[in-house]
């Protein structure tokens, strides 16, 4: 219901800033958050796997630094003007000291394990809600965006560890309005701009589906966070009201 514990992103290595030639393209790709590139920044390499039309990709390739591990999955040309937001993509890829690779993945597919979600809600200090209701709420949400951390073991035989580290969901009438609820990021992953990216990608996905009115209710401490994402409180004096709130 409310947004809690999403710390305003610090200036620490924001996902979307990087050295780059080709400013115009930069802006467009920045907004899309879909960018495949490799950068050497100490031990952190940031990749974003991207599904692009071949022509578009060609046009920006020259401006990018690429390394061999970059993955570009190209789709057949779409009829839409704008490239569609892929359902799942890598936001960050880090190489850890032990050689393991950690990827942070955004997905709008809504594949959430309710037990994982409950554990995450516990971590941010939210009151417990019945699992069955959590499951129903997710099922009835128009869009559920998630952040997962996948840790790929350095051992050749070692498996992957997948962890839910963030979620946001939106309810909607599929035509005009959408409301974002339950934005949360694991405290140990806060401060990196993940909450920002989570919300930005939900917004982008909603706008692509032509849902023009995107709303939410923000605790006073996070009003600024959302203002920086493009939300306006009380536009034209319109007030959020609650029926007999428990406050």
């Amino acid at each position, binding site marked *: 219901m409310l947004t809690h514990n999403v710390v305003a992103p610090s200036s620490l290595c924001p996902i979307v800033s990087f050295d780059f030639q080709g400013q115009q393209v930069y802006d467009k790709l920045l907004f899309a958050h879909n960018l495949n590139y490799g950068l050497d920044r100490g031990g952190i390499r940031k990749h974003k796997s991207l599904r692009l039309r071949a022509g578009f990709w060609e046009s920006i390739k020259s401006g990018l630094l690429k390394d061999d591990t970059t993955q570009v999955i190209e789709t057949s040309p779409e009829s839409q003007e704008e490239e569609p937001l892929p359902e799942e993509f890598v936001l960050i890829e880090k190489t850890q000291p032990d050689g393991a690779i950690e990827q942070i993945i955004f997905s709008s597919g809504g594949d959430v394990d309710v037990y994982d979600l409950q554990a995450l809600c516990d971590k941010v200090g939210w009151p417990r809600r019945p699992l069955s209701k959590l499951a129903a709420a997710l099922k*009835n949400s128009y869009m559920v965006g998630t952040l997962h951390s996948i840790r790929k073991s350095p051992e050749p035989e070692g498996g992957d560890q997948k962890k839910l580290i963030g979620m946001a969901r939106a309810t909607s009438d*599929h035509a005009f309005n959408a409301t974002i609820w339950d934005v949360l990021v694991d405290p140990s992953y806060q401060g990196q701009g993940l909450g920002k990216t989570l919300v930005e990608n939900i917004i982008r996905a909603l706008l692509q589906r032509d849902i023009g009115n995107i709303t939410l209710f923000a*605790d006073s401490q996070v009003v600024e966070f959302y203002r920086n994402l493009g939300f306006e409180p009380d536009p034209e004096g319109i*007030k959020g009201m609650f029926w007999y709130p428990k406050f």
Partner: protein
Amino acid sequence: MLLRGIISSPLPSSLRLKTHKNLTVSAQIKTQPTTASSNNYTISDQALESRGFVLRRTIEELNLDHLNSVFVAVGFPKRDPQKIRVALENTDSLLWVEYTKTSKPVAFARATGDGVFNAIIWDVVVDPSFQGIGLGKAVMERLIHQLLLKGICNIALYSEPRVLGFYRPLGFVADPDGIRGMVYSTRKQKKKK
């Protein structure tokens, strides 16, 4: 049953909805049976019927062009009826009042949400020619009741400044505990980059 969703946690004393002499809905009432029956509201279903108004809860007999006219009459932008249809089909709860004489909708309200925790009420309208006689209140009371019956206890809405006084007596509070309603503005997006 009625307030099961609310009763699950401690309630402030302000949770006492006096809508009519015969009804005091409060936290203590756990055993009172709840049916969406006519006697629980400020104006009963029968009273409405006797005045020529029928309450409807489905979109089956709702003429969307007529509904659109009501929207336009109260100042909403005119919307594509097809989109309105999609919106209504994906709306959890809705209520409208049909004026028997013309078979047209004269009041309307709907709520979207996740069906368990949260609901937002949208598009609350009363045809200007029928305002001031309690139809808006009638629709709102029943819509809220419907949501409560589902166990949804977080009911919210966005109110234009001039109708805050309509929602307050119904039990709505603006910015409780500093919570602000926020809307995404596409105009501002370009500035941020």
